[in-house]
């Protein structure tokens, strides 16, 4: 690995605060942001698997936390992040095989990603609440 000499102050190129937000840039930033949220979520899933083996008390403690207002807020944030990262990830995979580079298409698939991730999050929560209330 190379390291730059410490005493040279190099100029920095203009960053986020300089540019006007556009659907392309905002969605790209969201992809990275939701990725970080999902990284945090992966720690939670590990906890959940461990709580299943750590005995009945730890299982219900974690369940009680996840079904509390704070826990539900975390799950809401995780689920939106999951569906957003999933939909936008499919968009990325399509770009990888050369599909959808025209700027009009990029905008169209961008809005599709936004609407589908909100819709999928809504459907998941509706099903979750129906299961919780014993309707499903």
């Amino acid at each position, binding site marked *: 690995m190379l390291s730059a000499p410490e005493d040279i102050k190099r100029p920095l190129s203009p960053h986020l605060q300089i540019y006007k937000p556009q659907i392309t840039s905002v969605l790209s930033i969201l992809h990275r942001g939701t990725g*970080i949220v999902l990284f945090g979520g992966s720690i939670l899933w590990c906890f959940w698997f461990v709580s299943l083996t750590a005995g009945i008390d730890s299982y219900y403690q974690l369940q009680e936390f996840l079904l509390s207002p704070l826990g539900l807020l975390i799950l809401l944030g995780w689920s939106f992040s999951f569906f957003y990262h999933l939909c936008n*990830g499919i968009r990325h995979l399509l770009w990888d095989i050369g599909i959808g580079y025209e700027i009009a298409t990029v905008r169209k698939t961008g809005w599709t990603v936004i609407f589908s991730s909100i819709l999928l999050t809504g459907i998941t929560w509706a099903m979750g609440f129906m299961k919780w209330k014993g309707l499903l």
Partner: protein
Amino acid sequence: MKYESSLKRAQGLGSSKSSVHHWLIQRITAIALIPLGLWFVGFFLLLITSSYEEAHAAFLSPWTVTLAVSFVIALFYHASLGMQVIWEDYVPYGLTRWALIMGTHLFCFFLAILSIISILKIFLT
């Protein structure tokens, strides 16, 4: 237009000597996580309001355990590759960057093993 000599093209390793390995594994785990992630969301949704006994019973099926372990492997592999790119983008070359990347990889490795052992413990006992 070709930017590489014939030998470099045949070796296909590029300047980093590791070629597209990181890129490719990130895509493979991404594709795996489409069905596995959706499965996990449905599985978790069914179990989050379930009793301890019901949750344990769910992990007695070899299908469930296979899916859960596959999900864990793809998830933590994908997560550690993704976090590596973020560190590489924002932390300048040096010991800190190296430590953050190594730390993230080892952390993900540890959590993956812990998750898999926990899942298998329920399955096998």
